[in-house]
Structure formats: C-alpha cells, structure tokens
C-alpha cells in the first residue's frame, strides 16, 4: 500500500483515534496512527498538524494545554459532540465507498463492460 494518505481519510483516522483513546496530544496521535496502520502509514508531521488545525476550525475537535505524563506542557486534543456525530456520518460514507469499490473490483462484468 502506498504511504500516501488518501485525501479525506486522515480526518476520519484522527477522529476515530481520538474517540478510541480519549484526549491525546499530537505526538501520541501520530504514534497511535502508526501503530494501528502497522507501519504502513508513516504520517508526515506537515500533514498531521495542519489537519488538527483544520478539524478544530470545523469544530469537530477542541484543544487545550495540559501537563503530560512526563510533566511537560503539551497540547491535548479531544472530540466535541459534533465531532462524534461526524465520525458516524463519515464512517457510513466510507463503508459505502468501500463496498462500492469492492463490487467493481470483484465483479468481472463491471470491468469488462
């Protein structure tokens, strides 16, 4: 699989990770996404931080400064109620897309037609 992040999927990954882990800082998010993707997705920081800002601007997540486990100030991100709704919505869209693509890839008629 390409290491390039598919446009629009990063947002859902971030939201879903925050949903699963609760409030988390940027470093933690990056690490978690790397883990979950089993090393297939090496997230560029130039993509992650702007994405976090974008999600904040849309009101899906919010941030606050807190003290981290190693006793240092860090910026923590967490889901907003709107962000929670957005996950449901985007997950459904994504599932539809996957099943649609799946049909095209499996069905020989589609590729020959």
């Amino acid at each position, binding site marked *: 699989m390409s290491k390039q992040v598919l446009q629009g999927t990063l947002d859902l990954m971030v939201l879903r990770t925050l949903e699963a882990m609760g409030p988390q*800082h940027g*470093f933690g998010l990056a690490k978690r996404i790397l883990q979950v993707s089993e090393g297939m997705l090496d997230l560029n*920081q*130039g993509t992650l931080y702007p994405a976090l800002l974008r999600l904040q*601007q849309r009101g899906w997540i919010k941030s606050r400064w807190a003290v981290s486990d190693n006793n240092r100030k860090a910026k923590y991100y967490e889901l907003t109620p709107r962000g929670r709704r957005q996950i449901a919505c985007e997950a459904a869209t994504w599932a539809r897309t996957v099943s649609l693509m799946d049909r095209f890839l499996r069905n020989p008629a589609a590729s020959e037609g």
Partner: protein
Amino acid sequence: MLGRLLSLVRRRRLDAELADELDFHVERLEAEHRARGLSSDEARRAARLDMGGITRVTEAYRDQHGIPFLETGWRNLRFGMRSLRRTPGVTAAVAATLAVGIGANAAIFALVNGVLLKPLPYPDPDSLVAVNHGMTGTADQLPSAPYLYFTYREENRTFAGVGLWTIRPANITGLDRPEQVQTLYVTSEILPILGIQPMLGRQFSQEDDSPDGASTVLLSYGYWQRRFGGDPSVIGRTLVLDGQLQDVIGVMPRGFRFLDNRIDVIAPFQLDRNQVTLGRYVFPSLARLKPGVTLADATADVSRMVPLAIDRFPPPPGYTRDRFARRPVTPRLTPLKQTVVGNIAGMLWVLMGALGLLLLIACANVANLLLVRTEGRQQELAIRAALGASRRRIAGELLVESTLLGLAGGALGLVLAQQVLYAVRALGPANLPRLEDITLDPVVLLFTLVLSLAAGVVFGVVPALRYANPQLSATLRSGGRTMSDSRQRHRARAALVMVQVAMALVLLVASGLMLRTFQALSRVDAGFVRPEEVQMVRIAIPFGDVPEPERATRMQHAILTRLEAVPGAVSAAFADIAPLDPGNGGSDTVLFVEGGAYAPGQARPLRRFEFISPGFFHTLGIPIVTGRDLTWSDLYDRRLVAVVSENLAREDWQSPAGAVGKRVRASPDDPWREIVGVVGNMRDNGMHLDPPPIVYFPALMDRFWSAPTLSFRSATFLIRSRRTATEGFLRDLHAAVWAVNGNLPLAEIRTLNEAYRRSLARTSFALVMLAMAGGMGLLLGAIGIYGVTAYVASQRTAEIGIRLALGARAGQVRRQFLREGMMLTAAGVMIGLVAAAALTRLMSSLLFGVNRLDPLTYILVTLVLVAVATLATYLPAWRASRNDPIEALRCG
C-alpha cells in the same frame, strides 16, 4: 471564516503555540530514540530527521490557519516593495519605460473615448438623428430644405420632433465696439429636441419663430459672461444684431454646446410657410426619434413623405413641379453622433493600435530587464526554495513585484497623459471634434488601471515562469560562478528582442508611410502660391446699414482700395468664401452649359460657385491660363461674364482655349453668361483631394439664381503682403476698414497659410504621433538589443578571457557577438516586414500619394533599423573584446 480572520491577527501567538507543540513532539521522539540506546546527540539528530523540515510544517500550518490569498498577498506586497527598493536603478528605468508606454496609451484612449465612445451631452442622445438627403446619380449629400421641414413636421409618424438650423456670422453693434458673432438660427423645435433648457429666461415659442413674431435672441453662457459680465438683468434688454433690434429672452446653460460648433447667440429662424418653394437644400436638420422607432423606420417614413412634400409646395419661378417629381431626394438619416464625429475614427484607431504596439515593445524591454535582474537573484531564490518556500510563493512574489512596477508606471503615465491632453485641448490638432469631451474621466482611469495591471502581468510572467522553480543543486553548487550561458537560458531573451525589433519595424514603416504622405501632400500644387503672404479677414456689411446690393459692393470696393494702400500690401481682393474653408464642399451645385446635352435622369455634375472681386487670381497667385480676369466694370455694368477653372474647361470643352466664348448659367431662367477666362486649378477641398471644378462669377450680378440683383455682403478679404500677421499690419488693416465704416467688425483674422496648415492638420497629427511612436519603438528596441548583448557579454567574460588568452584576436570575439546580434535583428526584421505588410492595410485611408507597400519606405526603414541595431550590438561587443584576459579569468 471568522476564526480564520481572527487568526490573521493572532498569528504571532499561534506561531508560538505551534513551535511549543512541535518542540514537544521532537522531545518525545528524542526520548524514544534515547530509550532505544542512541546517544543524546544521535537521538536529537534522528528525531529531527523523523520530523521532516520544521519550516515546511510551519508553512503548511500557516496556510491552514490564515486566509492564504490575503495573507500571502500582503506578505508578497511588503516583500516586493522591499526588493524594488533594493535596486532603485532598474526600478526607475522600468517605471519610466512603462510610464511612456502607458501614458501614451492612456492619452490616445482619452481621445478615442472622448471623441468616439462617449455619448453626446444631451439627454437620451441615441435617439437623435441628422436628417440629410441624397439625390439619385450623385454621391453628394444634401442637407434639408424648408419645404421638406414643413412636410416632416406636419406628416411624420416617427419623429418626436424635427427642426432646421443653420449657423451664420452676424454683426452686433451698439456695444462698445462692433463685433462679429456666430449666430445659430433654429426653428422652435431644435432646443426641445436636444432636451436643453435655458439657464435663465425662456425658450423660443412658436410665436417667436413665426415670420411676424417679435425679434428675440438667446445668449450662450460664454457670450453672456464676455459681453455682459454674467449680469442676470440682461434679460429684457435689446441687442442690435445685423442692424435689427432683438430682445434678449434667455441665457443657455454653461455646458451647452451645439453639436461641435462655437456659437455666441441663438435666434429663431422665422420661416414664412407661405413663401416656401421646392428646392433650397441649404439648411441642416435634426430630429429626435419617437421611443422604439429605429433608424430604418424613420428612413422609410421620410421616403413616404418626400412625394407629399413635392405636391404640397409650389416650384420656384422658372421651374416645373415635374422636374422635382422626376428626381426626388432620398433620405439619408444618420445618428447625430456620427455627424458630429465625422471621419476621424479611422485615424484614432490606427494611432491607438500603434501606441498599443509601443506599449508591447516597452513591456518586452521591461521583461528583459526583469529577467536580468531576477537572474542576479537566482542564488537568493534557490536558497529560499531550499528552505521550503513553495514554487507558488516565489512565482507570486515575482508577479507582485512586476504588478507594483506596472502600477507605478501607470501612475506616472497618467501624469504624462494629463500633460498630453492639456496640449491637445489647447492646440486642437487634426481638427479634432469634441475637444471638451477629451478628459481623464473614470473610464479612462479604469482603462489605465487595467492596462497597468495587464502590463505588469505580461512582463512579469516571463521571469516568474522561468525562475520560480530554480534547479537548486545546480545553482547552489556553482556558487554564482557561471561559465557561458546555456542556450536555453538565452532563448527567452532572444525571443523578446526579436519581437521588439519586429514591432519597432512595424511602427517605423507606419511613420515612414505617413512621412511620405506628408511629403506628397506638401509637394502637391495647391493652386495658390506663398500662402504665408496672404492675410485673410472676414467682413460683413449689414443689411440694416446698407440695404442696396450695389452700395454694399461699392463699400467693399472702397475697403479694397484702402487695404491696397496699407504699407506693405501688394494686392487685395475678396470672395464670398475663403479658400480651403471646410464648409466649401456643401455649396456645390449644378451648372447649365449651353448646348450641353444630358439624357433625362442622368446626373449633372456638381460645380463649385465662387463669387469674387477682380484681382482674386492675382492676389492668390493663381495663373490665368487663357483669356482675362474679371474687371470692376464687369461688376458695375452687370456684364454677363464668368471665369472657369482649367479642369472644368477640359471636362466640358476638352481644352482651356475651347472654353473661352462658351456660355453657362446657374438656372434655366437666368441669362447665359460668357466665359471670358480660364484659370489654374485650386485644391479647395484640401491637398489630399482633387481640385474641384470651379466657376468664378462676379460678386455683383443681376438676374442670377432668379434674384434681381445679387451681391455678397459677407465676404473674406485677401491681402497679399510680406507683413502678414504682424501686429502693426493688423492695426493698419483695422484702420483701413474703419476709415470706410467704423461699424464693421473684422472677424476670422488668419493667414491663408493657417488654413493651408489646417487642411494638413490631420495628416501632420497622425505623422507626429506615429513618428513619436516609431522613434520610441526604435529607441526601446535598440536598448533591448544593447541590453541583451551586454548581458551575454558580461556572462561570458570568463570564456572570452580564455579565448583571448589562447590567442583569439579581439576582432574575432567582436565578430562573434555581432553575428549573434545580427541574427536576432535579421529574424526580427523578417517578422516585422511581414507584419508591416499586413498591418499597414489598416492605415491605407490615411495615406496619400504613396502605396502602403512603398518599397523605398520599407528599404529605408529596414536600413535605419539595422544600422541602429548594429550600433547597439557593436558597443557591448567592442567592450567585451577589450577585456583583459587575466582580469577576466580572475573575477569572472
């Protein structure tokens, strides 16, 4: 969106927060690496590598939190200003070049806009039409006539109003000194048609315009200010106009202009419907169309009415109605604006095209300058690209810089254009109509702004495309020390120079053709000689003072005698109309020739009639080909004589000698008049047109045009003298006239040379403008070639040094540069010749006596251009070849 706007303000804080956040990220990465057993230095390094470029992240983050367009725009603007200030020389050169290019275009556009595009200054100007007529068989245009006016007024279905007007000089006496004023005579409809109310007082009523109405007059704002100091109590006072008392009933508003005519007073026509006969096509007419009516509808309506008019009015004595019914006039309605503007559109568009080319040349030059300047900044750009500036951002900065330059050039250009327009309005070149409408109005300002921005983009896009994406490694590695230029790098500049040369050639050909036209016109035999020695003044003898025609002529004779006695005067004469008067063409009419047979319906050619005193030909220097001049006894004894021009004699009788003794008349019930002399032709319509066939009649005659006695009270006096136009001479002339009658004003004081120059004015204006454009184009083209050669030479200093060190001779080096320069010039010249051959088609209406493909012009222009280009190439080549090889190698 609001959040984004806010973040523009909070940027500094956001940046700091991001830095903290990223620091944290890096620290954690470092900690992990240490945990894996790396030393702290190695861990830090590994963490940095994992992180990628911090700058790049910051940039991406900023793009997300701001409004990229606004913010980068502002940033680019500041950056652009800073970098322009760093190179003041180039900036000034560019701004000045652009100022000339944009200024010239702004000025010519102001002319085009003021003369051609702006609507006339009347309400709803598009429904105003000029009502003219044609006659089958002749191309000439006839104005309207009283019998047509009355019929149109009573029977039309398409006009909201229709009226007649005419302008004549009239004398005003009874004020401190006599004065000749331009008087506009109108029927009562004209001012309401134009939609203009007097500023003070009232308009003409139907009664004012009726033949037994009171004598009333309206003043123009200018005349009211000049003669009455703007006194509002002038209404109700009386003026003596041509010896008649007239009540002042109103003053026109300040901005009022009647079409394109300067007028002082307005008086009602007072036509008597009962006296109107068929014919008399001497009065212009205008009308306002009803809403929704098209020009075609109105034309059809007029066609319908012409036969009605012929039935309705009696023929003049000596004519039959049948004559008019057989050859009815045909309608020729034109939008009023077209009549006012005339045929100047072609010239203005040609000039606009020429100056547009000049601007393109200027842009090419500026693009070249900027290429060189950007080249010098390559290091800087490469470093910034390496540090993470995106291609878009660098291109954006370069474009903003060039746009700033464009705007600066535009602002300077406007200042320049304003000066040009002052001059144009003051000098009134080329008989330009609507001078008052030629201003830097918002439309012109907008045009200039768009032009400046467009110019900025045009010359900015070349360096932006070329350098936005520098080859980092190559540029950085070479450390600014480039050896010879790559061919590819050179190509953009070469193409620009070629285009410049080509366009400069087109402009030079255009101005060359104009110069040849001017030469041809100046060489044309006008008919008269040494026009600078002929003083002209117009004097009108009022009917009120001297009612009898013969007494008026005797007074004119007395004036002539006095004028000839003025010190320095050689001879003097008068004529009803001055030579080269632009209004001459309209008065041409049919001449009946004894024994001349014309098939019914065949058009008789129109001839010009002039009514002259003896000595007219002698004063103007027109040769008498055969026969004799008129004499005073021809006038006073009412001899039935006439003189014709040589071309008329050849047309009707094959030779000048054949004309003498033949007989002609102006209308079928006049007696025949014998031709006693044939004189040389005179180009009375202007030097670019063939001389019209002219019949000269004595200025005092019986039974002419059915009038018992005809004299010409308003006449132009011509005095030949070496002292023309000097103050002393003019004072002597006044004294001579006033010795005869102290009430006579002298008007239209000018020399024949002024009229002659005026007839060439349009050509000389086009010539001056094109010559300036051509000269500037040549100069800019030369600078372009010089710049490129000099730049290439400086880039190749090291190479030249090596070659000189290895034994190449200076001449060889020079020749190489010359060859390259000449290749460019030759290519440019080829393109330019083809373009010129195609483009000069557009200016063929401006040319006279020269073919638009005139080989001499093309060859000379090419030679001049090649010579200048060679010089522009040679100078830098010569300098390069004198390089000291040691010096060159050390510093190159």
